[in-house]
């Protein structure tokens, strides 16, 4: 059996900008793979190459063993693609739109009506079949686009940020739908939201600045980073002096200031893999006469993996706001 998606040494350049630098990964049959990275990391570019919308500068993409640039139409027939920004013809009604899409996707005339009824049910759209797309809420439009994805019964689904801009209730419904689809279909799910990956994906590829920085299961990525220690420290003393001293300690990889008030300063200290920095911190505190008020190891989440791998602090703020369990 061939691999549903195989990306080999893919590079995409725009003039001087390198959007993708030699990325490789594959998605196996039946798995839901997360494609995780901050905005602008190259996720959408990769997916557009996968769907044959744009061509690569070098490297290749095989979908079910077919080269995307050579057999674009055959590849597109096998893929259900949900673009990041869902804009559908506003003047068409929902059923009318799906009928149009099923025709251009080559769904047979006899099965067309049945297929449309099926996807309408799958995406809970039965109530709005006669509504104009332009009048629908964003959540409904997203579902219409998802229904469109499923029309031709593709073996592979490529979803670009499918829950972006939805309310918590819709997000949960969408994730449930993706999970249930993942039982029969191979899914590549692009997102910058970490809980989404932890909840729905069996494997995850992390991309940053056009490079794949890790490909693993969410659990293994967590373990990989648990090898290196992350501790919360709270000390009484001059914040900048403490920060400088902490950074000097052997085995410390990174120190993040977490604010200070009333002479108390809080930090997050990341140790090098295998190193235990707790004793060193304790000795430092004694030596410099800073009262040590807290020294606690942190449970490492995928969010931290992500920050560690990409050091995009801003992204973690966005991701933290995302409700983990809604």
């Amino acid at each position, binding site marked *: 059996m061939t691999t549903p998606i195989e990306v080999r040494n893919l590079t995409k350049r*725009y003039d001087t900008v390198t959007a993708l630098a030699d990325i490789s990964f594959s998605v196996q049959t039946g798995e839901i793979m997360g494609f995780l990275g901050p905005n602008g990391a190259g996720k959408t*570019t990769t997916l*557009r190459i996968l*769907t*044959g*919308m*744009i*061509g690569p500068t070098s490297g290749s993409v095989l979908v079910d063993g077919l080269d995307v640039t050579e057999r674009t*139409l*055959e590849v*597109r*027939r096998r*893929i259900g*693609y949900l*673009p990041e*920004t869902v*804009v*559908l*013809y506003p*003047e*068409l009604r929902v059923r009318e739109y799906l009928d*149009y*899409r099923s*025709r*251009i*996707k*080559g769904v047979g*005339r006899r099965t067309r009506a049945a297929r449309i009824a099926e996807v309408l049910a799958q995406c809970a759209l039965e109530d709005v079949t006669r509504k104009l797309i332009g009048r629908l809420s964003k959540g409904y439009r997203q579902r219409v*686009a998802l229904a*469109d994805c499923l029309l031709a019964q593709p073996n592979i689904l490529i979803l670009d940020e499918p829950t972006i801009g939805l309310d918590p209730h819709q997000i949960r419904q969408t994730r449930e739908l993706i999970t249930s689809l993942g039982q029969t279909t191979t899914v590549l799910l692009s997102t910058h939201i970490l809980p989404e990956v932890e909840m729905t994906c069996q494997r995850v590829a992390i991309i940053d600045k056009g490079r794949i920085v890790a490909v693993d299961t969410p659990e293994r990525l967590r373990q990989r980073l648990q090898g290196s220690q992350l501790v919360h420290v709270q000390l009484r003393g001059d914040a900048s002096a403490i920060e400088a001293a902490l950074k000097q300690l052997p085995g410390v990889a990174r120190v993040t200031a977490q604010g200070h008030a009333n002479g108390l300063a809080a930090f997050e200290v990341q140790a090098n893999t295998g190193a235990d920095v707790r004793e060193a911190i304790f000795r430092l505190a004694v030596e410099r006469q800073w009262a040590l008020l807290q020294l606690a190891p942190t449970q490492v989440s995928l969010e931290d993996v992500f920050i560690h791998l990409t050091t995009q602090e801003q992204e973690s703020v966005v991701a933290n706001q995302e409700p983990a369990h809604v």
Partner: protein
Amino acid sequence: MTALWALTTRELKAFWYSPIAYVVGGVFLLLQGWVFWLLLAVLNDPRVDPSWTMTQFFFGGTFFYWFSILVVTPLLTMRTFSEEKRTGTIEFLLTAPVTDTQVVLAKFLGAWIAYIMLWALTLPFFLLLRTFTPFDWGPVVTGYVGTWLVGAALLAFGIFTSSLTRNQVIAAVLSFVAIILLFSIGVLDVFVRDPEGSRLIQYLSLMEHLRAFSKGILDTRPLIFYVSLTTIALFLTGRVIANPRWRS
């Protein structure tokens, strides 16, 4: 074929479901009605040169004919690619299992069918006239064919300019300017003394072509001219949208 037809009907729907269709259609019919009224006045005037025929007057004989062609075609095509690119619906189109050729052809067919339908709305004029006076249908048929041929070329131009920009207004202005330039080639004839140059200009002159069509002459030279123009413009459009820079 199913896909091409589905794409074409979508184009037609985009036109007929929009208010532009009714504004354009309304103005168009108003102009043509005016032309018809003038035509009746001319036919009733004994001082008019009897060699002037009804169809020569209706097809290309008045300013209003050219005005409706030159203005209507950019309005029909300005939306085609610009709007899809501006809103982002193009991504759904270009990732569907259809070829670029099908997409371009469907855009063209959609606009052309809408244009043909607009002109078909003027058919009742002739049916009405027929009840009062006998005339030869031949020149009427060739007149319509000529009008549809000119339209095809101008619409293809408009689709090309629409593929160049994501702004509908710019697309309309660009195609309008291109169409005016093409149209004015024929007007240049007055200034050219050289017989060879004059012949070339007559070959390129839209007005000259229409004069022949409205006399009932179906010449292959203008036919080839318009078919080539249409093909070239559509081919160029295909090149534009195949450009990776355009697509991303």
